[in-house]
């Protein structure tokens, strides 16, 4: 696998950073080389924020910012009004959006031509399964699908381990998240 670069868009408090970290962490378990890093500003809850991933089969040495990601993940569609989420996205790039809308609609809204657009209603999935609008974990499932980066089951196992570690006494949280990831994996579509 060549080097793949991902940019996450979210709002402070929505877990873009957590998603990127979780993604990287899980990928390491499957033997990949990874990076995950936030674009730190002093922004508070609610403000638009970014996070990034690099993932590769070979060691990743660079520590510069990502200007031209292969994949963009948008956790919150309202961001698209004020933020240019497709900035730097190359023609063969992929954009994955948490939305109720169709890929076509999004494509139009963003004035995209060649790039691939995928959508999934991660907020709905999260609200239904986790009883809270926390789209970041479901989006992981969708990302795995659209990126074809990792084996889904390997990934699921390692996310599970990570979640169990984080919530040692709350199996319901772990199970819920895993369920949500699975569903988003299934529901994500072009």
């Amino acid at each position: 696998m060549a080097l793949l670069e991902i940019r996450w868009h979210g709002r402070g408090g929505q877990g873009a950073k957590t998603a990127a970290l979780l993604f990287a962490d899980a990928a390491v378990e499957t033997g990949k080389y990874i990076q995950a890093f936030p674009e730190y500003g002093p922004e508070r809850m609610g403000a638009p924020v970014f996070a990034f991933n690099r993932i590769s089969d070979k060691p990743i040495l660079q520590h510069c910012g990502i200007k031209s990601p292969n994949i963009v993940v948008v956790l919150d569609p309202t961001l698209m009004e004020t933020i240019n989420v497709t900035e730097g996205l190359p023609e063969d790039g992929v954009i994955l959006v948490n939305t109720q809308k169709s890929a076509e609609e999004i494509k139009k809204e963003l004035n995209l031509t060649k790039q691939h657009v995928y959508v999934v209603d991660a907020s709905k999935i999260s609200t239904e399964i986790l009883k809270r609008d926390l789209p970041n974990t479901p989006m992981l499932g969708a990302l795995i699908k659209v990126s074809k980066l990792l084996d889904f089951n390997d990934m699921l196992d390692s996310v599970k381990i990570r979640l169990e570690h984080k919530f040692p006494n709350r199996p319901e949280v772990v199970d819920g998240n895993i369920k949500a990831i699975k569903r988003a994996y299934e529901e994500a579509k072009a």
Partner: protein
Amino acid sequence: MASLKQLAAQEEKFLGGHRACAGCAATIAARMVLMAAEQPVVVGASTGCLEVVSTIYPYSAWNVPYVHNAFENVAATMSGVEAAYRALKKKGMVKKDLRFIAFGGDGGTYDIGLQALSGMIERRHHVLYVCYNNEAYMNTGIQRSSATPRGAHTTTSPAGTKIPGKIEPRKNLTEIIIAHEPAYAAQATIGYWNDLVTKVRKALDADGPSFINIYAPCRLGWAYVPEKTVKVSKLSVETCVWPLYEYQDGKYRITVKPKEKKPITEFLKQQGRFGHLFKWHDDVPIKEYQEEVDMIWERLLKRSEQ
């Protein structure tokens, strides 16, 4: 007594467009303090949430002269500003009658900035020092300060499996400052805007250094939903976790006495930072905190009667 209508008639001195979390009480406090001031003011702030969210280059929310120097030295910085004012006024280079306000978070006041504040008061600089007290270092991600109450979870006093949050009681900074004999000292909180505004005015009129410790809930660090900011503030007074009182000319005065003193659990259970205490294997941490609150309240009642 101030009326909201009058207050609202002035120009805003602390503007929107700042980057505080939605529902942040620190910014409410800053706004209220500035609107209370009847004289032109010059403001200083220590590093912390209020500073960071209000002044990110090239944007500033302050519509009054403002200076930020470092984290630990706003009291010293404003001592210098005030000294410059006296010097330049003497020379006729400044004409207006100005007031000076220093803002510091509890970290910048109770801990790293305490000495500078102590010195400012001792030298009798005519500055109002406002501590907006959210009981932790919020800007760096919710670490314990000496204002953090016992039992509270912070990232450096975490609710662990061995130790349930912070173990030491909070420093009583207001009493420490009162022992410095400033011209005016008080506790206030944003939920009681009128009390707060009145205190700011008294402080600015006092002939010497003054201090107001403003309890300012932080929805992020205290972990509650943003719209409850004012409610949480009010609960702190109703439970006597944060008594509203003032000290001037050697006399204590309680300015808002709760009709009925509620148990602190009413206050604690609103907030995620205390959540683990309700699941802890015994009730010692809560009991100890209640005793501390009671002790301080009793003493306050006694002193205010003298």
